[in-house]
């Protein structure tokens, strides 16, 4: 497994530099002279040349490319034109946790909900509930996403007033706040991260228990301690709590909207995959063995139906990135998607390149994660790797 991960990391590095070069040249190939757009035309020509040189805008495309790639390795992504003189890495570092937060949650909800509903649909095929849920799934799957997001805002924010209309925090509340938004946000992520690590650690440990009763105990200890630590974490940060709640309040509607859209596809796919696995001979074997119905559904059928669903996650990554731009724009969520959009529109080339590069890194990491997950879920793959 380690050898496999190592091999993949090397491949990914290579792939990433190909991708980075492609992004660089694509943005270079755009019409227009950047220096002309950003530098005041009243500046004397010799001064303009000096500034252009400082920004690395002189020299041929090839030298610029070489400089960019070598600087990228050292972590220098240049400075933003739009927010001059902020460094690109600083801009991205501010945005990336927000996007990760939004999409990790939306993806988790979508897959957990979609999978568990999908397997139930396939299991009780033919009933009224199956038809109605399937039809709503198809509706959600095919709906024009930006329109759906606006409708959600219309209903839940402007109509019912449950959630803020847009944004990431309420400016009035934060005017004299002792913290910056990102400080609070990072604490939020940290506490969630700790809870997630404890949770998945105990799940892993529970699976290795031979006795079912021990496994159940370990699992409950896992749920309890993850939740307990999370609560404890925020009990010790009484001052920060209202601000954290404010951020969470803003995040709910985008997460719900994104989950609803993404969940439908997973649900329909799970349903289809389940219907296939239910025809397999090993399901009949399980029935003949006297395995309880619920275990046949979850342990035998759904466990196998999970494989194509995981594959779909990889294929769906492109949608997630594209959806990111739309979601963040509609909800004014200041993440990577909206950064990419504003940077592109404003021809802030260093930020746009940097944003694309980081989205690329995230996509590659997600691919790696799925590959590892796949090897864990399907024993047939693990063996092929070893041989």
């Amino acid at each position, binding site marked *: 497994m380690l050898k496999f991960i190592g091999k993949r990391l090397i491949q990914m590095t290579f792939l990433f530099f190909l991708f980075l070069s492609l992004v660089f040249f694509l943005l270079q190939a755009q019409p227009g002279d950047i220096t002309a757009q950003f530098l005041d035309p009243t500046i004397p020509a010799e001064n303009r040349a000096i500034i252009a040189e400082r920004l690395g805008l002189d020299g041929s495309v090839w030298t610029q490319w070489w400089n960019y790639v070598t600087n990228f390795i050292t972590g220098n992504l240049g400075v933003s034109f739009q927010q001059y003189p902020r460094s690109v890495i600083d801009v991205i570092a501010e945005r990336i946790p927000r996007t990760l937060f939004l999409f990790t949650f939306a993806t988790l909800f979508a897959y957990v909900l979609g999978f568990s509903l999908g397997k139930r649909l396939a299991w009780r095929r033919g009933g009224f509930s199956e038809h109605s849920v399937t039809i709503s799934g198809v509706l959600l799957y095919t709906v024009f996403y930006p329109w759906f997001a606006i409708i959600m805002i219309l209903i839940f924010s402007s109509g019912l007033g449950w959630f803020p209309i847009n944004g990431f925090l309420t400016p009035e509340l934060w005017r004299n706040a002792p913290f910056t938004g990102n400080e609070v946000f990072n604490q939020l992520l940290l506490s969630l991260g700790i809870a997630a690590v404890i949770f998945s650690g105990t799940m892993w440990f529970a699976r290795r228990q*031979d*006795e*079912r009763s021990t496994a159940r105990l370990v699992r409950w200890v896992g749920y309890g301690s993850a939740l307990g630590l999370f609560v404890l974490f925020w009990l010790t940060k009484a001052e920060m709590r209202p601000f954290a709640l404010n951020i969470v309040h803003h995040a709910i509607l985008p997460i719900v909207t994104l989950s609803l859209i993404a969940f439908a596809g997973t649900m329909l796919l799970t349903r289809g995959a389940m219907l296939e696995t239910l025809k*397999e*001979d*090993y399901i*009949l*074997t*399980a*029935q*003949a*063995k*006297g*395995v*309880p119905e619920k275990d046949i559904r979850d342990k*035998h059928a759904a*466990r*196998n139906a999970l494989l194509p669903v995981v594959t779909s996650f990889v294929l769906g990554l492109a949608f997630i990135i594209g959806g990111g731009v739309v979601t963040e724009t509609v909800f004014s969520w200041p993440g990577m998607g909206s950064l990419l959009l504003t940077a592109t529109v404003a021809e802030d080339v260093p930020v746009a390149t940097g944003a694309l590069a980081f989205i690329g890194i995230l996509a590659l990491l997600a691919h790696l994660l799925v590959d590892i997950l796949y090897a864990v*879920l*399907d*024993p*047939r793959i693990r*063996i092929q790797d070893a041989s």
Partner: protein
Amino acid sequence: MTGTQMRPAERNLGSGDTHPQAPILEVKNLVLNYEVKEGMVSAVEDVSFALPKGRSLGLVGESGCGKTSVALTLMRLTANNARVLGGEVILDGVNLLELDKEQMRLRRWADISMVFQGAMNSWNPVYTVGVQIREAMDIHWDPKPSASEARAKTEELFNLVGIDPEMIDRYPHEFSGGMKQRAVIAMALSCDPKVIIADEPTTALDVIVQEQILEELKKIQRDLGMSIVYISHDIAVIAEITDLMGVMYAGKLVEFGPTADIFARPRHPYTWLILSSTPSITGPRRQLAPLEGEPPNLLDPPTGCRFHPRCPFVIEICRTDEPTLTEIEPGHTIACWNYTQVPVTLSRGDE
């Protein structure tokens, strides 16, 4: 003598020997239909047979004759559109068809286990074979086996069926076809069932492995005193391993009796034709008699005897009245109006 290469089971189960004790499994007047868009398919019609304890029984017939439907009814695993319209399946004194779902679930594998048709795919690919065998033990053993007990039992079973116990923690795809089938047999034995149903246990395997698996099954039956029901379209397999056999045609049992007797002298025209159409390697050379025609459409089975459109010995009554199973010798029953016309020797064709 029979003119075929098949060896009937070695033990001589002469006529007087068929009722040594109360049967462990008894099927009485089983009627099963499948509900389809076009109507009702009469898949199993009035089938009765009994399996004495520690013996083996084979059901043979062509595809679609209802033999697998019978097997699945014994386990109550028939498809959703199957309707059992009548009859009883009595396993050790209990009518399985009267049990509720949960009671039946607990009896499966504990009392009656099954080696499936296409056992190659009987294993769930994502769990090790050991885990899947233990799953059955966890459900049916009382009390549940501890990890070491389960392992010891599985090792014992693996040794019994001739697999290296080291393979317990391996995944199904690491097993060869024959090994998978052996492991399925081991799993079928894991809860000490009273009866095992083997539905085409060797169909997907090559002949050499087929032979080994059959030997294994025979050994298990002999050594453990297991009662086994075999389902096969391969009459050679049935000849080799069963004490009793039933021949099914178009959902009906047409001949039933000791395997040795039936091979020595088939009395039903269908059995006689099947055996006549089978070439022999060791017997005298003879022209094969073909079995003309096709099995009937069971949506609308023929009136009278279901075999009459293909029967060379057909007489008037066959077209109108259904023959019932009649005992012509002790333990040997057939359903035919005109069996006295069936020749003593197998057909020599148009020689």
